[in-house]
């Protein structure tokens, strides 16, 4: 027995990008199904975060100034037209959530819109989507895309975890909203963010861009990833109580993380938050109600006691990379397939730097609205047409050789080492990328030759494959960009070299790099 459904627009993933896309597509008159691996409302990094959206009033001078500043941060790789588009859509649509989200005061008699608390925000998006008539399928991870005989993406297959049944959903347009790849770093809320959408799209021939711009990191207690609000003023000590020389995060960026990472290699690093702004203490639990729990439940006063910390990798979430887009409506190179939010590249709006902090959520909202509207239009024009389909998934589904048990734990450990190993990730050079690339290729070959599973085990094995694929694209792209720029820092090429190149990475068994001069440089 299995589940068969048919719809106009299928959205894979149920985070903020999916929510905005679902509402837009339903408003445009389409039948919409959202299938999330977890629960739309609690899964994904939006739900555990508190996205502050890029927010600039529609005053031409102020918008122009904001775009100029963001273009500077993007270091030649941002597209001012995309930036203008996401500023406009965010400003117009975020307040439309007011019936479901209790926006707070701006302290001056008005409403504060730009920053929202993740748990209430995602609860509101779920409610708004349900009210708009969207069908939400929780615990329905997608496994592979379907293609019809005309070469269009025509839906997906997956597994319903709670019902223990396989599902197949046929659609006229499909949107990937599966989020970024956190490489199972333990980053808050990211367990389901394994880059599945990138893997599925790559099997349909879609390339990625911006993959070299990462990783970024968040500091947290060593036993639990938390939000980082209390840490900006932190002072760090070694186990003997000697203060460590750590340049501050805002100004130093890479050097801050490198100093912390290297200190952590030498032994435990303890944080002292007693210098945090005084005004934060009484209101931390209102702003970020999840942050105090990991301390209180261990009897630690976070603003008084020193405690061990760890850097949690943020993968492509606060990096930039994702599926490459071919037009201003978020289409990919595979007909019928759209990509939005962190599943897509953020290079268009964040360039060489992290879009975390404001731009990424404005992107997730706007790309969702844009793709939802376009997918509805495209699918309604195609109603009725329904050609035979076949699944595009190969890795872990149809191995080249005989099935063999795969040591998934060892693979996760290896990916973690290549992407997060403090000893090499802060001082990368050609030889170090080559060595990482070779080790990951050997893992991929083994998986590709022998990996095979069914049902819930297939969901997990495909996650493992997506982690390895994501790591390989990251390393290949970083190796391909022979300069340092923004988040991409190399020890052997420490400067940015012109002209500004945009780089795409593609392929699974064989990985290719294509460079071309950036049009907006």
């Amino acid at each position, binding site marked *: 027995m299995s589940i068969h459904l048919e719809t106009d627009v299928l959205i894979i993933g149920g985070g903020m990008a999916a929510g905005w896309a679902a509402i837009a597509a339903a408003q445009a008159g389409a039948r919409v199904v959202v299938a999330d*691996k*977890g*629960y739309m*409302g*609690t*899964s*994904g990094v939006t*739900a555990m975060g*508190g996205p*502050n959206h890029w927010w600039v009033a529609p005053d031409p001078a102020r918008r122009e100034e904001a775009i100029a500043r963001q273009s500077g941060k993007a270091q030649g790789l941002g597209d001012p037209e995309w930036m203008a588009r996401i500023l406009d859509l965010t400003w117009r649509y975020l307040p439309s959530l007011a019936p479901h989200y*209790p926006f*707070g*005061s*701006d*302290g001056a008699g008005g409403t*504060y819109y730009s*920053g*929202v*608390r993740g*748990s*209430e925000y995602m609860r509101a998006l779920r409610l708004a989507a349900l009210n708009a008539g969207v069908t939400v399928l*929780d*615990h329905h991870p997608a496994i592979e895309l379907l293609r019809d005989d005309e070469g269009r993406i025509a839906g997906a297959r997956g597994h319903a975890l*709670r019902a223990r049944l396989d599902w197949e959903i046929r659609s006229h347009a499909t949107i990937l909203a599966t989020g970024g790849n956190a490489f199972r770093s*333990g980053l*808050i*809320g*990211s*367990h*389901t963010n394994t880059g599945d959408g990138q893997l599925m799209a790559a099997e349909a021939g879609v390339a990625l861009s911006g993959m070299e711009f990462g990783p970024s990191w968040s500091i947290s207690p060593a*036993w*639990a*990833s938390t939000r980082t*609000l*209390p840490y*900006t*003023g*932190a*002072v760090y000590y070694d186990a003997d109580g000697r203060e460590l020389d750590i340049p*501050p*995060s*805002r*100004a130093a960026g890479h050097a801050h993380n490198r100093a912390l990472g290297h200190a952590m290699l030498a032994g435990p690093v303890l944080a002292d938050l007693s*210098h*945090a*702004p005084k*005004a*934060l203490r009484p*209101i931390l639990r*209102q*702003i*970020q*109600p*999840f942050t105090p*729990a*990991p*301390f*209180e*439940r*261990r009897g630690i006063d976070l603003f008084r006691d020193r405690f061990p910390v760890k850097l949690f990798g943020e993968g492509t979430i606060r990096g930039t990379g994702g599926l490459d887009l071919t037009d201003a409506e978020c289409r990919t190179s595979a007909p019928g397939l759209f990509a939005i939010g962190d599943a897509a590249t953020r290079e268009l709006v964040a360039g060489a730097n992290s879009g975390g902090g404001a731009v990424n959520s404005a992107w997730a909202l706007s790309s969702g609205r844009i793709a939802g509207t376009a997918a509805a239009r495209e699918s309604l024009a195609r109603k009725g047409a329904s050609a035979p389909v076949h699944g595009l998934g190969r890795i872990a589904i149809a191995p080249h050789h005989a099935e063999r048990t795969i040591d998934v734990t060892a693979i996760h450990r290896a990916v973690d080492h290549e992407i997060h190993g403090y000893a090499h990730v802060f001082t990368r050079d050609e030889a170090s990328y080559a060595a990482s690339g070779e080790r990951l290729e050997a893992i991929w070959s083994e998986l590709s030759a022998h990996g095979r599973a069914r049902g819930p085990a297939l969901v997990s094995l495909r996650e493992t494959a997506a982690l390895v694929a994501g790591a390989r694209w990251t390393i290949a792209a970083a190796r391909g960009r022979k300069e340092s720029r923004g988040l991409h820092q190399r020890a052997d090429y420490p400067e940015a070299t012109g002209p500004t190149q945009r780089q795409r990475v593609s392929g699974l068994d064989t990985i290719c790099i294509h460079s071309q001069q950036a049009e907006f440089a």
Partner: protein
Amino acid sequence: MIAQILADKCNNCAQCVSVCPTFVLDDGPQVPVIARLDACQTCYMCELYCDRQAIYVAPDQFAPEPGADPLPHLGVIWRDHGWDRPGEAGHLDEYRKLGPLLGEGAEIAARRYQAQRRGV
């Protein structure tokens, strides 16, 4: 990781089974069953969504900590979110201070670092 579902508080409504993003829990005869602990991401969402404050999530995300006394912590996350008072406005009135406080912390760190450099 999720540590306890308290049978004397739980009414087996299965809300936690539904909302867990990583599908850790299964339906059970009296209370839900913690079936896949290794998938728990320590996100506290099951606690937040439980109307009966019957769940305790232990703070370590890498290892189970079964021994802790949950009583002082039950319902704290739910109340801090204001979910015990759904009709009351103003839960999010302090939220606007997040950005400025982040900036203030960064300035404190920068000033301190510079002063130290000058001292050396």
